[in-house]
């Protein structure tokens, strides 16, 4: 027990928060820095996460121009997968593709166009993305939302193996794979 009256001030000096106080000797489990004043950073990536079957994927938000509720498409005779059909988007004929086929998650495309077309599942959406050849649609099972991440949070794949995979984002809810939408259409 320390008895002199000055010691309460000494105690408070240890009690109070200082950004430069010592942290040595603490268990080091995770990079857990106090973030310096986080401006909504220009360098932050904004990702639109969506689901294909059970898997979660994401594309850069900037490439997506709109999200439509999935609707029956107009069939294209002799269309080859992954082309599902076309969509008249306010006068612009927009092809819609199935990314699940490109990613090897499905072997047969869903019937989304033509007379024996099934009614699309309630959660299904069409992501309209900008490409070098005009707008194109991606038929996805569901859209989860927009996530803002720092580029460093993205685990990049080893070079040379990438294909259209830009990186993998690990979060507590599970991982999602960030893909290049143009690669999904190729």
């Amino acid at each position: 027990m320390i008895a002199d009256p000055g010691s309460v001030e000494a105690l408070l000096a240890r009690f109070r928060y200082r950004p430069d106080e010592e942290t040595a000797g603490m268990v080091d489990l995770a990079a857990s820095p106090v973030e310096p004043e986080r401006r909504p950073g220009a360098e932050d990536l904004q990702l639109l996460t969506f689901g294909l079957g059970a898997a979660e994927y994401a594309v850069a938000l900037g490439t997506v121009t709109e999200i439509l509720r999935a609707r029956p498409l107009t069939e294209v005779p002799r269309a080859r997968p992954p082309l599902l059909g076309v969509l008249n988007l306010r006068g612009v004929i927009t092809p819609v593709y199935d990314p699940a086929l490109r990613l090897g998650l499905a072997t047969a495309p869903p019937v989304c166009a033509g007379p024996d077309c099934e009614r699309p599942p309630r959660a299904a959406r069409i992501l309209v993305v900008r490409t070098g050849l005009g707008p194109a649609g991606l038929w996805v099972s569901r859209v989860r939302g927009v996530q803002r991440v720092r580029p460093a949070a993205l685990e990049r794949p080893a070079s040379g193996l990438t294909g259209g995979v830009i990186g993998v984002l690990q979060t507590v809810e599970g991982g999602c794979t960030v893909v290049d939408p143009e690669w999904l259409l190729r």
Partner: protein
Amino acid sequence: MSADGSGVDVCAFWVGDAVYGIDVARVDEVLPRVVPLPVADAPEYIEGVVHVHGTAVPIVDLRRLLPAGSPPRSAKPKVILARIGRRRVGLRVDAMAGVRRYTVAEIRPGGAAKGVLGVTSDDCRLLDLHGLLANR
């Protein structure tokens, strides 16, 4: 931190049957429901890590570090995200007890347990987080 330096604002919380406090300036936020991801080979007082706005933060179970009796019956466990220097930790507590202001005269130095800097007149134990967590 108080403006005149003669007192202190304390974020108080329950751990077991005692009230502890840390400087409110350390507290970033209080999270109600947190499910940490377990970490292999972590010390037993670390529950795991959670992702908070893009950074991983270790969660420390204060109930395993402080002499804890049984918590108040109305306990609502929370995680306090606190700063220690340039690092952050999450502190698992049994319940929040509000923000309290103490003058220097209300604080007695010393405390029985490791990491306790002093005790206030209403029996709130002021914690030294670095002293509590370092070199375990």
